[in-house]
């Protein structure tokens, strides 16, 4: 009896997981889930994501994730059990992920610095303009 319940439970969970996976794929295919900015760099303020260039670190992270996840899935299915992931492989993923995070933080902070220096240089002239309009 308990064996039957376990089998039914396993079947139900497997169906739910597969349906969920299928739904995600279907929504991506129908463009309800938008992946057009998957490789795009974080856009500067006022620029739409479609107009930014691709990010090398994002691309690298995507390729590493897919290859290692694919190998893990494939070898686990072939071996009939979960394969162990050595520390070196985690380091490999960590290098790629770390590069992505650093690249993501460096980009926007530099843009903010650029924007603040631009606004500082623009302020004196703006103040003059404001002053002249007040006198008028």
């Amino acid at each position, binding site marked *: 009896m308990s064996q039957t319940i376990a089998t039914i439970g396993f079947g139900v969970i497997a169906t739910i997981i*597969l349906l969920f996976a299928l739904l995600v794929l279907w929504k991506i295919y129908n463009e309800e889930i938008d992946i057009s900015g998957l490789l795009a760099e974080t856009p500067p303020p006022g620029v739409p994501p479609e107009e*930014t*260039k691709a990010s090398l670190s994002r691309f*690298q992270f995507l390729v590493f994730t897919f290859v290692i996840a694919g*190998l893990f*899935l494939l070898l686990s299915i072939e071996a009939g059990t979960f394969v162990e992931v*050595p520390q070196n492989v985690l380091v490999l993923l960590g290098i790629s992920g770390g590069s992505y995070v*650093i690249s993501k933080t*460096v980009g926007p902070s530099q843009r903010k610095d650029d924007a603040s220096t631009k606004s500082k240089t623009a302020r004196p002239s703006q103040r003059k303009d404001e002053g002249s309009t007040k006198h008028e």
Partner: protein
Amino acid sequence: MPAFIAKVLEAGLLSWMALLILLIGLRILRGDIRVDGLLLHKEGDTSVTPERALTMAIFPVVIISYAYTALNMNLEVPGPVRLPDVPESLLNLLLGSNGLYLAGKIARG
């Protein structure tokens, strides 16, 4: 019966992964996902930056050699099955190229 469900789940997950990769690949080929500018520092630059070109040359070598090793490993050895180790030389190569890439990104501003 559980073995049959497991087989279906295995096939489903593998197909899902393959379809997802195919979908992203097709979108990239169709131009819906932009991959231009991978070797440029900023949008509108005309020259390729060397550190990006180096990273772009090295990381496929690392990942292809690792995938080749993993796909040719013997799964019938006694004991728990594990993914193959990444050689130190490949790790250092990737670390060096990514370090250069980040240094270039920071230095160029």
